[in-house]
C-alpha cells in the first residue's frame, strides 16, 4: 500500500491525540480552616 505523505501526517496526528488529551491540566481544591479558637457553635 502506498500511503501519501498527507495521509501519513493525518495518521500521526490521530496517534498523537491521546497523548495530547492525557496532558490536560490537573486541578484540585484545598479547603482551609484556621484560628477557630475553641468555637463549636459559630453564630455567623
Amino acid at each position, binding site marked *: 500500500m502506498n500511503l501519501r505523505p498527507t495521509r501519513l501526517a493525518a495518521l500521526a496526528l490521530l496517534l498523537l491525540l491521546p497523548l495530547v488529551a492525557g496532558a490536560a491540566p490537573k486541578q*484540585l481544591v*484545598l*479547603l482551609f480552616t*484556621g484560628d*477557630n*479558637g475553641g468555637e463549636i457553635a459559630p*453564630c*455567623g
Partner: protein
Amino acid sequence: MPVLVLDAGNALFKSRDSGEAPDAKARAELLLSQMDAQGTAAMAVGERDLVLGVDFLKKGTKKAKMKLLSANLVDGEGKPYFPASLVTDVGGVKVGVVGVSPATEAPRPAGPPVKGKPQPMMRGLPVQPAVAAEARRLREQDKVDVVVVLAAVPYDEALRVAAQAENVDFVVQSHEGRGVGIAQRQAFATVVPPGDRGRQLARLELTLDGPGRFVDISERERTRQNLGIVEANLAKAREKLASATDDASKQSYTQAVSSLEARQAALKKVLEGGATSSGRTHLLSYTQLGAEVPGDPAVQKLVERIEPPGSAAH
C-alpha cells in the same frame, strides 16, 4: 474536583489562659474528633492548641487520621514532638504540607505538672530555617508538586516565610484571628488567610499545567479590567486630541495620551508575562458558614451538651 482539607492551627482554645474554663477540655476534644471526622488531613500546632499541653494533643489524636504537624516544636532534648510534614496525593498531584508553630525564646513547660514526674519542656525553634529545610526536603526527596505551609505563627513571621522560603507555594496563617482577606503574593509564596472562629471555609482552587509559580487568576482578571478602562480612556483622549484646536489643549491631550499609552503597555506586559511564565493558577474564595448552611443534627447534639441553646457562650 479532588479536595484536601487542612487546618492552619489555633483551633482548640479561645486564648492561652483559657484552659481552666470548665468546658475547655470538652470543647477541644469535640473539635479534634469532629475535625478528624470531617476529613481534615492535617493541622498545625498553634499556641492556642497547646493550652492543655502536648500530651493532651497526642492522646486526643492517637486514633485519628488527622495529623498534627510542627517542624519546629521540640522537647527538652531537642527532639521533635510532632512530624514536620505530610505528603499526600490529591487527584494525581503530590502535595507536601508543612506545619510550623511559634518560635519561643526559652523552653516552656509542655503541659501541666504531674506530681512525682519531671516537668516535660517544649521549645519552638526559629520558624524560617525549620520551614526552609523541610520544604527543600519535600521537593528534593519526596518530589512533591506543591508545598503548603500551615503557619500557626504571627502574621509578620508568615510574611517572612513567604518572602524567603523558595520551595514554598502557599503559607496559610493563623495566630491573631485576622479573619478573611485576599491572597498576598510575596517574593516566593502566597499568604492565604483561612478565616476564623468557624465562620468561613477558605477554598483555594489550583490548576497545574507544568512547573512554575502559581499566578492569582483574580489578579489577572483585575489587570484585564484595568486594561479595558485604560484603553477606553485612551480612545477618548485620542479623539479629544484630534479635535483640539488651541496649543494648550493639544499639549495637555498629548501628555494624557502618552501617559495612558505607557500604562496600557505596562498592563499588557503584566498580562502577557502571567500567561507565558506559569501554567499554574490559584483562585481564593470563601464560603460563609451562616444560618443558610444546614448543620448536622448528630453534631448539633454533641455541641448542645457543652453549649446548650441560649447559654451565655452562644
